């Protein structure tokens, strides 16, 4: 078959559908009619909310003949509280205060007044206890930095570092995954040693106390909880498929195991306390327990509709905090647990939502451009960590 024959055959195999065109135009036209003309600083949220609201009017006609219409989910751009304020065009004061650690073309610290400082071209970074220092990694190098980027110490690993975490409360230990190995060092960078085989794709999680108990995933995909100082494994699960994350509840009593399709709540001995599956057709992108109280923020995505939701789970109850088209990034809790920072790459925004509803939603636009070093291509931040004030 010649290329020309193939070209002609493809065109014959995919004829136009006038009815589909008409239906689609009705939806697009209705969305366009609600379009807010762009002034010098475009405001995403009213546009997206307006598009969603206008699509409600068209969804009845569309749904009858296009049963898999994605418009239905697109419609559900829901904001807790006042229905979506105008977005601030740039980062200023951080709602709720505190300090942010942002990973975007390097590691950045954002002070409470919005002042941004790039620490360097690191592949990733995480906070020390109380946000005094930053643990940053680049290739095989692990470094502890002051907030202004000055180096306190560094060590060279044997393999590229995927993730690193500083033990909470006293900061006397750091754990990191290099290659397929979990390693532990002292908080001053000394005493670096291998702990055991580990899987790089899931970050280890220290229990939020001074016990130096660490949850991590071994190479078989089993969740291990170990007291690293005594090298004692407290418990180990069977291999878990499609693991996304491990996270402890704020009181350290339970471990939340996050997979693509469900959340598992495990007790101090690894016993299963509760499980929660996501609705059919959805997958979990991220989940994070609140720093205080029983809530768990969960981001889940519907691939067929290409829409995402942020829900707050408390026991059996579930409350929708936000939904919108495209994907949402992993949320970050404010230090007080009152606010959630929700990255929205498709809209190039950060949303600050009240976890318990009510009040205004703060929105900051043009996020990618604000974390782009000179001469680099703009890219939306890959992660955000929210720490204590000061």
């Amino acid at each position, binding site marked *: *078959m010649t*290329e020309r024959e*193939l*070209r002609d*055959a*493809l*065109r*014959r*195999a*995919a*004829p*136009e*559908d*006038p009815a*589909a*065109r*008409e*239906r*689609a*135009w*009705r*939806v*697009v*036209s209705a*969305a*366009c*009619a609600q*379009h*807010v*003309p*762009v002034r010098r600083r*475009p405001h*995403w949220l009213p*546009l*997206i909310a307006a*598009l969603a609201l206008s*699509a409600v009017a068209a969804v009845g006609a*569309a749904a009858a003949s*296009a*049963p*898999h*219409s*994605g*418009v239905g989910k*697109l419609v559900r751009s829901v904001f807790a509280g006042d229905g979506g304020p105008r977005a601030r065009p740039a980062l200023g004061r951080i709602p709720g205060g505190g300090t942010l650690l942002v990973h975007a073309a390097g590691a950045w610290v954002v002070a409470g007044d919005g002042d941004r400082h790039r620490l360097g071209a690191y592949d990733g970074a995480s906070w020390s206890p109380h946000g005094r220092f930053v643990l940053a990694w680049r290739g095989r190098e692990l470094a502890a930095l002051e907030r202004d980027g000055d180096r306190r110490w560094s060590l060279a690993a044997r393999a590229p570092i995927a993730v690193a975490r500083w033990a909470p409360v006293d900061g006397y230990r750091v754990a990191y995954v290099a290659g397929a190995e979990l390693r532990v060092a002292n908080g001053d960078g000394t005493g670096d040693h291998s702990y055991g085989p580990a899987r790089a794709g899931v970050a280890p999680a220290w229990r939020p106390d001074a016990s130096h108990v660490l949850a991590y995933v071994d190479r078989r995909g089993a969740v291990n909880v170990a007291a690293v100082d005594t090298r004692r494994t407290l418990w180990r699960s069977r291999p878990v498929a499609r693991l996304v994350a491990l996270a402890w509840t704020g009181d350290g009593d339970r471990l939340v195991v996050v997979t693509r399709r469900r959340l598992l709540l495990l007790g101090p001995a690894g016993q299963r306390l509760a499980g929660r599956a996501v609705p059919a*057709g959805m997958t979990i992108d991220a989940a994070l327990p609140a720093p205080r109280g029983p809530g768990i923020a969960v981001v889940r995505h519907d*691939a*067929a509709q*290409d829409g995402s939701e942020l829900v707050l789970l408390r026991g059996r109850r579930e409350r929708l905090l936000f939904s919108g*088209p495209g994907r949402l990034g992993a949320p970050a809790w404010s230090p007080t647990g009152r606010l959630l920072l929700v990255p929205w790459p*498709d*809209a*190039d925004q950060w949303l600050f939502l009240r976890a318990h509803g009510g009040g205004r939603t703060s929105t900051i636009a043009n996020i990618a451009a604000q974390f782009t070093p000179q001469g680099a291509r703009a890219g939306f931040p890959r992660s955000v960590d929210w720490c204590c004030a000061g």
Partner: protein
Amino acid sequence: MPYAPGIAAPALDRSRRVLSGGGRVSEAALVRAARRGSEQAVAELFARHWSAAYRAALLMTGDRAAAEDIAQEAFLAALRALPSFDLRRPLRPWLHRIVVNRAIDWSRARALRNEVPAGTAADPSAPAAPAPLDDAIAVALETLGPEQRAVIVLRYLLEFTPGEIARILDLPRGTVNSRLRRGLDTLGALIGEDR
């Protein structure tokens, strides 16, 4: 760019489609006008790109309802992104990137649901009924993976160059060329068997 003359959405008034007194308006001008709220500009963009988007999605998915959803969502995504769209870039590759990526996602999700294309013989050993060439193409495309289907559709339906395809799909050019070669070989072998 494939366009089906004579097939226009009834909502479009051709007499209003020329925005500036004659001649074909540039795409950048249309995007600017659309940003300012011009429905005529949006209508013109829709008229220029809908057919190709729908047909590409149809060949990618083999499913008319999915193709309609995907093409429609691509236009809605384009509307959302208009305020920040870089006017130095052409709209067409950007729009088709959305279409192709969503079609790939849809195909993968369908595979996970273990759906089979309509018309699959209940007995796998039974020979497939002979089909006209154009249906044979659609069936042959189904045998390709979604990523391979994407490069075939982008190259031979939408007539993007391999370099443009590489940018649309974020792939190395060599990968695009090898997928094109293997896709053509597979299609040629399957279609050749039916002749």
